[in-house]
């Protein structure tokens, strides 16, 4: 059965060749992924992290007029307080009403774990609908109900007819995968199973019953507009400034740009089918959804890396332009933009030349940024990717060519990062949100790998990335002083051996 027909989505582990524990050279990673040796690896020591539920919630909270119902014990929704604040800000920055996200938890107790939580779930959905009048209710299915086997789908089916909102199940139990990126598939699965993704007659348009000339002209005009419309898929790490930059560039090619699925409403989501092309901004974000849309609506898609740095941005633009026979225009646009930005970044480049950089975070972004920085004259001393799956092959083939001997780790583990920073002593760390405090305590300058408050994509992004690096290096006193007064929890002996001593090859022996 197609994944799209199942009530719960597959995790990345079952859909793709995947791994989260690896240490080696850049040039060997792709082969290790292809041969399956990556799949076999694990660790003998782990530190807490995130799960697919957390990332699923980050995306679901951004959907307009939605309420989140956590089908969970009381703790699973804990991070929704901060996600709600983040979403309210994201909405304001996109010109939407800055409202918080209402959420509820079914608060599963011991009795529910034994007797089932279905009745409670129904009551919670009905209450959420009555009190908040949302357009969409996301029912987030966590570990506990997945293990006890609550029939959430049945409750969703029943409540869909008894409440006003569209009730959508979002299956994302953390135990199913250590790889957080499964969340993208989980979130998109919830949309494609639970919502209409194409316009509905009498709601979104008046069906053309009279075949008069005017109607035919209107239809032709609509089809023309559609043939120039692209859906660009944003997610979590891509902020409003990135969206603006992407829109600016694609608009310059004469395309009509819309962003999905974050910060969209139910009505807007019904326009997804009305585009000539779906465009990804990261190989490991949305292939699951874009393949579905191709299957369902025949809309082709482009997955061409991340538009980070000059070369990647040009390639990304050209892949999109190719679809519209606008390659020459895309080249001209890139030439024009590159000339301007090269001039603008000159003073920055002098200040960052030969800086030794360690880059940590999302697999595609760290690969793209590593090659970009090395082309700009910085020295990438190690790359740390949070996970690896076959979607990242194109960028790691490139990394393998450009930086063949650079150490690459597939790791989201703070202790391994700490070891690398302490022993490699980089001049600068570029790392994922959530790790900045840990890096600061080691006394090393660092900047965010992404931050939804700033631009990272395209030409504006390139300028701003470099500007932020220079800004960080202007005064590093805070972290130098801080690090002298912080005690690390790791024993000294660990730093005398390999950073990756707890990675296990073939599920057993240590590296």
């Amino acid at each position, binding site marked *: 059965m197609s994944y799209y027909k199942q009530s719960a989505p597959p995790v990345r582990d079952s859909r793709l060749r995947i791994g989260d524990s690896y240490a080696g050279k850049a040039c060997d990673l792709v082969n290790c992924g292809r041969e399956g040796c990556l799949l076999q690896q694990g660790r003998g020591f782990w530190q807490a992290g995130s*799960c697919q539920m957390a990332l699923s919630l980050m995306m679901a909270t951004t959907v307009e007029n939605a309420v989140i119902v956590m089908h969970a014990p009381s*703790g699973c929704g804990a991070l929704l*307080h901060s996600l709600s604040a983040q979403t309210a800000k994201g909405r304001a920055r996109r010109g939407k009403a800055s409202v918080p996200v209402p*959420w509820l938890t079914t608060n599963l107790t011991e009795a529910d774990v034994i007797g089932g939580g279905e009745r409670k779930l129904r*009551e*919670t959905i009905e209450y959420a609908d009555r009190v908040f009048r949302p357009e969409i209710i996301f029912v987030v299915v966590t570990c*506990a109900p997945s*293990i006890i086997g609550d029939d959430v789908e049945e409750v969703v089916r029943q409540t869909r007819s008894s409440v006003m909102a569209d009730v959508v199940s979002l299956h994302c139990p953390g135990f199913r995968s250590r790889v957080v990126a499964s969340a993208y598939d989980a979130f998109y699965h919830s949309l494609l199973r639970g919502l209409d993704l194409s316009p509905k007659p009498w709601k979104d348009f008046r069906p053309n019953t009279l075949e008069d000339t005017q109607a035919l002209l209107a239809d032709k005009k609509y089809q023309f507009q559609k043939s120039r419309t692209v859906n660009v898929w944003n997610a979590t790490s891509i902020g409003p400034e990135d969206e603006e930059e992407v829109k600016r560039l694609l608009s310059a090619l004469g395309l009509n740009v819309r962003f999905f699925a974050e910060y969209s409403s139910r009505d807007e989501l019904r326009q997804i089918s009305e585009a000539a092309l779906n465009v990804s901004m990261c190989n490991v974000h949305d292939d699951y959804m874009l393949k579905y849309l191709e299957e369902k609506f025949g809309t082709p898609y482009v997955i061409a890396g991340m538009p980070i740095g000059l070369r990647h941005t040009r390639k990304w633009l050209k892949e999109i332009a190719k679809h519209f026979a606008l390659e020459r225009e895309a080249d001209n646009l890139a030439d024009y933009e590159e000339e301007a930005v090269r001039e603008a970044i000159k003073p920055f480049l002098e200040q960052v030349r030969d800086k030794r950089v360690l880059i940590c975070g999302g697999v595609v972004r760290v690969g793209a940024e590593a090659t970009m920085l090395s082309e700009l004259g910085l020295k990438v001393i190690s790359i740390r990717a949070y996970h690896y799956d076959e979607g990242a092959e194109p960028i790691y083939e490139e990394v393998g060519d450009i930086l063949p001997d650079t150490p690459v780790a597939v790791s989201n583990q703070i202790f391994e990062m700490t070891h690398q920073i302490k022993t490699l002593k980089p001049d600068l760390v570029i790392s994922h949100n959530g790790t900045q405090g840990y890096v600061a305590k080691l006394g090393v300058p660092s900047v965010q790998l992404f931050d939804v408050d700033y631009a990272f994509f395209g030409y504006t992004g390139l300028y701003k990335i470099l500007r932020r690096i220079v800004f960080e290096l202007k005064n590093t006193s805070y972290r130098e002083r801080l690090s002298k007064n912080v005690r690390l929890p790791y024993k000294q002996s660990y730093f005398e051996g390999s950073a990756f001593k707890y990675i296990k090859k073939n599920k057993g022996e240590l590296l």
Partner: protein
Amino acid sequence: MSDFIERPRTACALAGALSVIANLPDVIPIIHTSLGCGGNLANSIAFGSGYLGSGYCSGSAAPSTGITETEIVFGGTDRLDEQIRNTLELIEGKLYVVTTGCMTEMIGDDVAGIVSEYRADDKPICAVSTPSFKGDSYRGYECVLDGIINHYLPVNEDKDPKLVNIFGLVPGYDPFFRGDLEEIERLLTALGLKVNTFFTPGQTFENIRSASSASLNIVLSRVWGREFAERFEERHGTPYWITDLPIGPEATDEFLKEVAGRFKLDVGGLIEEENHRFYGYFERCADAFCDQDLKHYVVTVTNSTYAIPLARFVTRELGWIVTDSFVTDKLTEEQRAALDNECPLQFLTGVQEIASALNKNHPNSRGQKYFDDLSPLYIIGSTLEKRTAAARGARHLSVSFPVYDRLITDRGYAGYRGGLHLFEDLVGQIMSVKS
């Protein structure tokens, strides 16, 4: 109606346990769950409690078994065993506490069995059962203290006649726990006592070790810590005294007199000195406070620990009028009964429920010429009340979890200094709109 919760102001037992461990010196958690639990729960406290952050070995640094589907099907004890072994090898700590989550409790892993093997080998380790469906974060606070002090520490008959332990404030879920504890410690030290606060930066693992030799446990909450203190008394023979967190001079005078009486100490000039200092500052503000008409109606939205002391402070010291005190933690009938108060308490948690109750209790004017409405109003609650306050045109200060709109370091509201801080913050909010 079932007990679902809208925007709960607490998380699960595991969250409370992790928050306690993250704030205990040299205590290391080993979280037997999927990787997400430890990170997500720690983040909710690290960012949601005045940006408390992560400590020595918490948050994304906390050891966790990271169990997956394989362990759910085949059991997770092998993974736990390996994780404990490697944690002991890699992480420097004085005590390692294994905590559980819903999935590992459901599959029935024999955590105590594994841990007892390490105990037999003289390793400083204990296990605490903290599944999320067992209770909320407040319950988790009690579970983990019970595990460490009433089970791990050996029975101790020897008492230090001057030593007291302070309990009742839950790290993170009482956002000012550190400042409050430091002020209590300062005052009791001035009385001549030795104080274990456990959760403030000045404490070491020795304070935990010496807990069992205390002569008195002071529980600064009428609800949280009570059961734990009872079991403490059963095991180590230390009596407990349940009282309210003292905020401001009147409450703190009483508190100090009571403690001094219990230890037969001379409270002497301490109360006088502290009052002198308090009023030295407080008096100066009378011009602004009175000339600018800062008298307010007050609605409080806090946990049970803060509700009564906060209402008392604004009523007695500021002369404000408290109309509604909403208590947001989920309590049993018995726990509610322990909270007798002059102003009746309302037990509600949901943001929407509270806003609705407030509108029902105090309707807004419908355009009547003469209407005795609830204004000027000050809502003292959590960040979640910010929009409720805005909708009613009320002032607002966040003092209760979750607190996202301010950063908290050593600030506290307990005692004399805390009273001044609370006054300063309440009035400061009003002044902050001036330009």
